[in-house]
């Protein structure tokens, strides 16, 4: 079907639906909400990394004029399940028996103003009994390490399919282990070489500009209304129902525009405290964290990745055995899910006869780690793509040829039971190689200058992810799109609206994306895993096609024609040369008060036990990258002369938006590669504010920065679209490390590639 030839809305660089509001300062975010009588909340945190909580005296704070409530563990009764989490319910709303990191919340205050709340925090006295801390993965796994949880908290292991399994708490300080295995390990015996290498991955913070924020009301004694800066309102509602022991139809979660998340804004964050304080005070409560507190709320996972890879002399990959340790911080948050993904993605998009992986979530006395753009894939792409070049070098092969030889073919399953690869991986790799001048280059034309390639890889679209959409069209053709995908910056509201407009033959401006409120919005599992277009997009597409069919059937009846002879065009029925307005037809039949057509669409990947994660992957998200760099051997400073990134959008719904996604992701990867890092001295975060924590800025852009949106057309989404937005981040760090090796013959296997680290490696000479 050559549908794209006649697309009217899809594929154009049109203004986004939110453009006008956002450039005028009129877009509403949770932090902008102000309700009559609203109180302001602030939290007191522990400055000690690991301690038993002996006692809290908040009486002076309660007595301060303007203070309406102080929440401590004493305020949490039987009517509340005091802990939350994704798979493991280990994170308390406020500290119960212990504090587990510097920044753990011990109390929260609701007061007339932020200033009063701040003053009240200073009046709270807390007595701690210090415990030895575990600051790092190595610390936490060492003999005799202090345990964060002496007893296993309540948790679940979801059903897994062929080859995959998981365990809760396989050893002390490990809350979850994911395992995957396929093929026989005996093939290692047949390998000409087996290479073992270890990689270290540093930890970033999401650095979303809108902080975690929620405005909550507790109404009529048993009803919650909460507006929140959140990526997954329905999963949040379910968790709030469990915590507050309320039916889900008594909880309304509303999500305005979200000021950035990059993964962090999933599940409970600011909401439980805001809600509990609202219940205690009977007033609306706004709990907006400061940006500094974001660093103490959710982070990326630092990791250690050990790879053992078996290969033949001719460069054929045979087997990959890997052990991954994720630094999960003090609470599990999404760590088990990240472990599942890291463990699953570590082979990369290559063909093997045997794969075995395990991935441990290691608890440490540092800020909780959670979902972060790339979701385990950033860690695994770093290790896998670095080792690809190392192996190529050891075999005397060119890294590009080595990859081309082993890449999975278009349509070939990633592993047994999986869906087929839906991008031509070689095409993408050749594209970035050409753009960086890979094949044409002379070896080291300039000393200390080199090029490197990498291919970031992840399964996209989430696991077992249901999504539902509803479309209504009024008498005069005004379109209401109801779905739960949150507008977090990615342009999903515009893209999904464009799909509807395209199918209904309407101008994009006719579609309104309705505000998200779990009371009315159809179910969606969450805005994550690059799933908006690939999963929700399919639900929206179905709803639109079903609505279109309804309208054409209706018109066919009215006109005594066959539906297939009719077309829908800007709320007119096209019949041959005639364009008949629908409104009179509708009122003629339904009466002068008119009517609304409505249709639902649903999508979920089929449950499938032969697929390791119980459903086949919806789509494969790739990021091809190439870097041309130079290193100053005297200082260790890397200059990136040119960076090329490319993703495959399948079919770009809006090319400018796709470009922005790839570029934004790539620049995040650039920061990770070169300098951006949460610096810990033991358990103490040394750079937990925006001034001290360096993120990429405009002057960090490489002299040449090229992003290419491929549209290979194989995606499962509407018009062949695939998800994107994460892929661009994945290849950047390994491409730069590979370029550094090309330039100097020195391999750096830890991030970031900071001047001191690079120089030390150059001095060591390997």
């Amino acid at each position, binding site marked *: 079907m050559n549908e794209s030839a006649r697309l009217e809305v899809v594929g154009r660089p049109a203004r986004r639906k939110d453009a006008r509001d956002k450039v005028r300062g009129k877009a509403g975010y949770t932090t902008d909400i102000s309700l009559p009588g609203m109180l302001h909340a*602030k*939290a*007191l*945190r*522990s*400055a*000690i990394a690991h*301690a038993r909580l002996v006692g809290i005296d908040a009486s002076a704070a309660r007595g301060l004029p303007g203070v309406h409530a102080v929440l401590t563990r004493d305020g949490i009764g039987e009517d509340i399940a005091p802990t939350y989490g994704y798979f493991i319910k280990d994170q308390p709303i406020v500290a119960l028996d212990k504090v587990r990191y*510097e*920044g753990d919340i*011990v109390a929260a205050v609701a007061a007339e*103003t*932020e*200033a009063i709340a*701040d*003053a009240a*925090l*200073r009046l*709270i006295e*807390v007595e*701690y009994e210090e415990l030895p801390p575990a600051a790092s993965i190595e610390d936490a796994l060492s003999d005799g390490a202090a345990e964060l949880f002496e007893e296993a908290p309540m948790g679940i292991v979801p059903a897994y399919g062929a080859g995959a399994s998981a365990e809760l708490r396989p050893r002390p300080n490990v809350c979850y282990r994911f395992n995957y295995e396929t093929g026989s390990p005996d093939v290692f015996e047949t390998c000409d070489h087996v290479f073992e290498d270890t990689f270290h991955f540093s930890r970033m913070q999401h650095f979303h500009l809108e902080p975690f924020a929620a405005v909550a009301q507790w109404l009529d004694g048993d009803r919650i209304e909460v507006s929140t800066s959140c990526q997954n309102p329905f999963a949040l509602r379910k968790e709030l129902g469990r915590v507050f022991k309320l039916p889900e139809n008594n909880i309304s979660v509303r999500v305005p525009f979200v000021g950035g998340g990059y993964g962090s804004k999933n599940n409970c964050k600011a909401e439980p405290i805001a809600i509990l304080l609202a219940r205690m005070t009977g007033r609306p409560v706004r709990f907006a*964290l*400061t940006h*500094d*507190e974001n*660093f*103490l709320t959710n982070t990326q996972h630092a990791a250690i990745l050990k790879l053992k890879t078996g290969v033949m002399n001719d460069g054929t990959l045979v087997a990959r055995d890997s052990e991954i340790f994720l630094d999960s911080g003090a609470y599990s948050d999404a760590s088990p899910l990240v472990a599942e993904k890291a463990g699953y993605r570590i082979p990369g998009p290559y063909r093997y006869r045997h794969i075995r992986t395990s991935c441990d979530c290691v608890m440490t006395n540092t800020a909780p780690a959670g979902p972060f753009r790339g979701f385990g894939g950033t860690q695994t792409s770093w290790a896998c793509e670095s080792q690809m070049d190392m192996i190529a070098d050891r075999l005397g092969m060119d890294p590009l040829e080595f990859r081309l030889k082993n890449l999975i073919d278009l349509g070939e399953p990633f592993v047994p039971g999986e869906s087929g690869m839906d991008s031509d991986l070689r095409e993408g790799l050749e594209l970035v190689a050409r753009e960086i001048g890979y094949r044409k280059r002379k070896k080291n034309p300039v000393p200390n200058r080199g090029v490197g390639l990498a291919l970031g890889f992840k399964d996209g679209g989430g696991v077992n992810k249901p999504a539902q959409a509803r479309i209504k069209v009024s008498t005069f053709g005004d379109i209401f799109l109801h779905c739960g995908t949150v507008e977090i910056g990615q342009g999903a509201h515009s893209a999904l609206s464009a799909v509807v407009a395209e199918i209904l033959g309407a101008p994009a401006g006719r579609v309104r994306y309705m505000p998200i409120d779990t009371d009315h919005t159809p179910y969606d599992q969450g805005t994550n895993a690059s799933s908006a277009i690939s999963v929700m997009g399919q639900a929206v597409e179905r709803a639109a096609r079903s609505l279109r069919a309804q309208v054409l059937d209706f018109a066919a009846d009215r006109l005594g024609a066959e539906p297939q002879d009719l077309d829908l065009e800007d709320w007119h029925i096209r019949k041959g040369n005639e364009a008949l307005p629908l409104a009179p037809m509708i009122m003629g039949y339904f009466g002068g008060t008119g009517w609304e057509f409505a249709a639902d669409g649903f999508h979920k990947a089929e449950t499938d036990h032969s697929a390791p994660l119980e459903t086949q992957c919806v789509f494969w998200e790739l990021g091809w990258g190439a870097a041309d760099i130079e290193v100053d051997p*005297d*200082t*260790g*400073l890397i200059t990136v002369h040119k960076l090329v990134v490319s993703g495959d959008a399948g079919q770009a719904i809006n090319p400018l938006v796709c470009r922005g996604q790839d570029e934004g992701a790539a620049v995040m990867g650039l920061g990770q590669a070169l*300098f951006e890092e949460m*610096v*810990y*001295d033991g358990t103490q975060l*040394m750079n*937990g*504010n925006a*001034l*001290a924590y*360096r993120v990429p*800025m405009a002057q960090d852009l490489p002299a040449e920065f090229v992003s290419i949106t491929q549209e290979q057309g194989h995606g499962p989404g509407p018009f062949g679209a695939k998800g994107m937005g994460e892929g661009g981040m994945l290849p950047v760090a390994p491409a730069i490390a590979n370029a550094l090796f090309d330039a100097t013959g020195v391999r750096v296997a830890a991030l970031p590639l*900071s*001047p*001191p680290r690079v*120089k*030390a490696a150059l*001095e060591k000479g390997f």
Partner: protein
Amino acid sequence: MSPLDQSPNMLPPVRQLPPFRLFRPTTPAEAVGILGSEETPPICYAGGTDLCLSVHEGRSVSSLLSLNTLDGLRGAEARNGTLAIGALATLDELSTHDQVTAIPGLAEALGAIANVRIRFRATIGGNVMARRTAYEVPILLAALDARLVFESSVGRRELRAADIWTAGDLGRSLLTEIEIPLTEGLALDYDRTLRPWMTQAAATGGIERVAVGTRFLRPALLSGDPGESAESRFSGLPGEFNDVLLTRGYVTGTGAALLKRQRARLAKG
């Protein structure tokens, strides 16, 4: 986020201070008078770009002395063999000031600090008085052997810029001027390509002064005969010059390499 003194608790940044007493003097003398007479001296407020950070970090402000309304203490002028820079001069103003360009390299160095938006507001005096290791003006001033001139109700006091770290409480003093001796052949080269790990200022003119700044350590000042090798200049680096981001070994090796480049640039002029 800041542990409050020795408290075991951590408080969020204070976005909204309780109301403070606000002083808005119009002359430096009036400002000095207020600093001397109030029981708790009010906190000086210049461009505010650092003060607000320190408030967020838990500094309590019961009274504030706004310097914005002061007459004078801006600009720069050469007199009696020194370049005198007003403490309230902004980095933006100084980066194009024709008296500042009299010291080769200085205007460029000041114009490279922070960013355009901050430089409009940030004063040179505030950068010094913030006494933060990550800030760069003290590094430049140490290399230039500058003096800080303070006024207080008990009189005028001068301090070597390099001694600002050990000067103790200056809460009753107003920094009014920064004086840089205009020695024969004075020129500055400031290398900040390695920021935030380290930056390095080298000044010629008589003896060579090299100041090395890092994120967490007080700047080190290494001076001596310009003929001495770059390596031996760095042998004078304090023994404990390490932090979580870098080692002393890195600083000595890299610093010496940078110094060679700086000498070459300075020689070229």
